[in-house]
Every structure is written in C-alpha cells, then in structure tokens.
C-alpha cells in the first residue's frame, strides 16, 4: 500500500517535469530549459488530482540573465494549460549553473541552429585549457574569437577564417 503510493507520487512528478521541460529558452528557442540544465527540480505535494502546489526550481545561467523572468512565466503558463494552477517557481543560485549540465542532445540542436556549443568541460582546477571552437557552418577548426562578450551573456562572438562567416559560441562556463 505504502509502496504503491510512493510510485504514484514519483510518476506524477515525472509528468510535471516533462511539462515544465517543454519550455524553451526565449533567446535560444531550439533549446528547452531541460537541455540547458536550467530546470533543476519539480516537486508537488499532490498525489492524485490537480489541486496541490507545484514547486518548480530553476537556476539562472548568468546572474543577470533577463530570460529568467520570461522562463518563469512560460513555466506557469505551460503547467496551467495542463490544469495545474497553483505553481510556484523558485530561482536558486546554488549549485551554480555550468555548461557541463547541458545535454548532449542540446549541444547537437545548438550546432544545427548555427551556434557553436561549448567545447570541453568547465575548468575543475586552476588552469583552463582553451580548445578549438568548430565553425557551425563549415566545421572548420580555424576560427578566432572576435569578442568574449556576444549577443547575450552566455555567448561569445567568433569568426571562421575559412568560410569567413561570423558565428556565436556558447561559452564554457
């Protein structure tokens, strides 16, 4: 009896997770907040109907990222469309977000969209090793950083020295 209840609660939270996970980043619409690693947890005290409070926890990519307010609204809208009207979105800073949490599928989508995905892992020690950034247009590794600060906090602006096209690079962070 007890174990059955536990199974049903877990399933419901997974359902809620999947609804919240459909929300896309407003600045990079091919990526969901799950792909990005922004969606941290979904909890509910509701084990049957849709009456309980749903608590969704997200973490910002950068402290000042203006997309967070839009994401918060979109989560509430997505859950409301499925009948969950009592939704609270918590923004937490710890543990700090890292591009290491970006899913492999997310990186593929990013590259297809024309943004070079982060290369390698965030530095664990004192020395960070810069890896070559691959041009998302022609796949050349002969690319150069134009500026570390691009169209949004999370991106740098690069240029390909073979196909000559500029492109955004999602920084390792």
């Amino acid at each position, binding site marked *: 009896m007890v174990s059955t209840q536990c199974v049903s609660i877990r399933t419901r939270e997974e359902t809620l997770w999947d609804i919240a996970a459909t929300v896309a980043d407003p600045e990079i619409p091919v990526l969901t907040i*799950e792909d990005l*690693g*922004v*969606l*941290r*947890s979904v909890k509910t005290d509701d084990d049957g109907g849709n009456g309980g409070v749903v*608590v969704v*926890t997200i*973490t*910002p990519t*950068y*402290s*000042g*990222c*203006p997309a967070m307010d839009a994401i918060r609204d979109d989560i509430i809208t997505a859950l409301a469309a499925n009948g969950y009207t009592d939704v609270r979105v*918590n923004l*937490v*800073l*710890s*543990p*700090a*977000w*890292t591009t*290491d*949490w*970006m*899913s492999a599928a997310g990186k593929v989508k990013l590259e297809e969209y024309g943004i070079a995905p982060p290369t390698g892992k965030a530095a664990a020690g004192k020395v960070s090793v810069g890896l070559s950034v691959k041009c998302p247009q022609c796949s050349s590794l002969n690319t150069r950083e*134009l*500026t*570390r*600060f*691009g*169209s*949004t*906090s999370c991106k740098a*602006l690069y240029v390909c020295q073979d196909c000559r096209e500029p492109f955004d690079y999602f920084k390792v*962070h």
Partner: protein
Amino acid sequence: MSESNASATRITPGNALRPEDIAAADLKPGEAVGEYALRLGDDALILAQRLGWWISRAPELEEDVALGNIALDQMGHARSFLTYAGRAWDKTEDDLAYFRGEDEFRSCHLVEQPDGDFARTIARQLVVSHYQFELYSRLMDSADPTLAAIAAKAVKEVDYHRDHAGQWVLRLALGTDESRRRMIAGLTLTWPYVGELFEDDALVANLDGVAVRPSALRASFDAQVEAIFAEAELEAPEVPAAVGGGRFGRHSEHLGYLLAEMQVLAREHPGATW
C-alpha cells in the same frame, strides 16, 4: 530512464549545496548580515549604473556589448545581494535601489567615480574586477549559505571581467603614446580609491566566518595586479589615498548625481512597471 541518458540536470555535483536546501531555508538574515549584503549589493549596483553609460559610446561596437554585458552581470549580482539584504528589514530590492537617500548607500567611493575616458573606466574595471574576484572566491566558503551561493555564481562571471580589463590594460599601455598616456592618467585618477576597498571595520569583524575581512584580500590583489603591470610596463601610481567612508554612508559629490538619474523614474512614478 537508464543511468547513461539520465538528464544531467538532476545530478548535483560533488557535495555542493542542493537547491532544495536553499528553497527550504529560512532566508531572513540578521541585521548585521543584511548590512554586509547591502555593501556588496550597492557596489555592484552603482558600478552597473556607471558602466551602462558606455552602451553606444564605447570605442567600438564589440565594446558596447562587452561593457553592457559586464553591467548586466553586476546588476544580477546586485539584485541577488539586495534581495537578500532587504529581507532583514522586509524591503524589496526596488525599495533599496530606488528609495534610499545618498547617505543610506554603503558602496565604496571607487564605483561612483566618473567614467572619464575609456582608459579611466578600464583602470576602474581592473581594480574592481580583481577585488571582486578575490572577495567572491573567499565568500564562497561563507558560513551563510545564501551569501556563499551568490558568490559562487558571481565569481565565474567576474573572472571574465578581470580578463577583459587586463587585456585592455595591456593593449592601451603598450599601444600608442597617446593610449599609454591615457592609461597611466586613468590609473592615477583611480588609485586614491583603492585603499578603501581593503579597510576592515567593526561590522566585518563581528561577522567572523560569514563576511570576508577586506584586509585579507590585499596581498593576492596586489600580486595579480602587479603581474599585469609588469607585462604592461606600468607601475602602481604613488598617490595619496582619498578620504573614504562609503561603507558608513559618507560619499563623494558624484553619488548624488548618479542616484538622481538612476532613481528619478521610480520616484516620479512609484510602482510603475514596463
């Protein structure tokens, strides 16, 4: 869902604080911690306001974007610190940013200094970013989990700011005679305000383990900045220290004008939203 394709977002790395811990925590800080958070938040807020001025005025388009992004990061840090500080007095981040007078701000004098030319702004950035990097690196170990969490987030961003400032110092100092002259002039105007950043006082002394003692940051700050100076063939200017007092609400003549511009809309139309 198998282990191999499980979402990385559900993994908590190492022994880091879990978001659930913060969500469940009673976040109301004591007044002393609130005061300390106010200092950190005010530094970031005033710097963000200063840097925002450069948008559309920087020497090249990429620099508009860079300084705009750095301002945005600082604004993010300010929002976190001020939101937390405000809970000590049941005030919001907006109450603290827009409805405090000059003598209620706890920012240091350095961040309120005028932008000057680009080199002077870069000199200020060099100092602020290295100071904040040293500060946040240590604040990550604070006994206060919220301060530690904000610092752990901020330190990654300030690391870029430090790199950005350092690269510009090299470019300006080793560029033309004119760029070198301006870099030296910018550093000379900035240096009187460095000392205030590293002054201890009773508030931080009473927050042992929670706050970081400013004086403890000086040695590593000097080592980092001196390494850049050595590469850029510069020397730390020998100039007398300016009178400080920002942490106690005593400010230079510049802050009032800055606040007037920053606060006018919120005070003219209280509660207005976009």
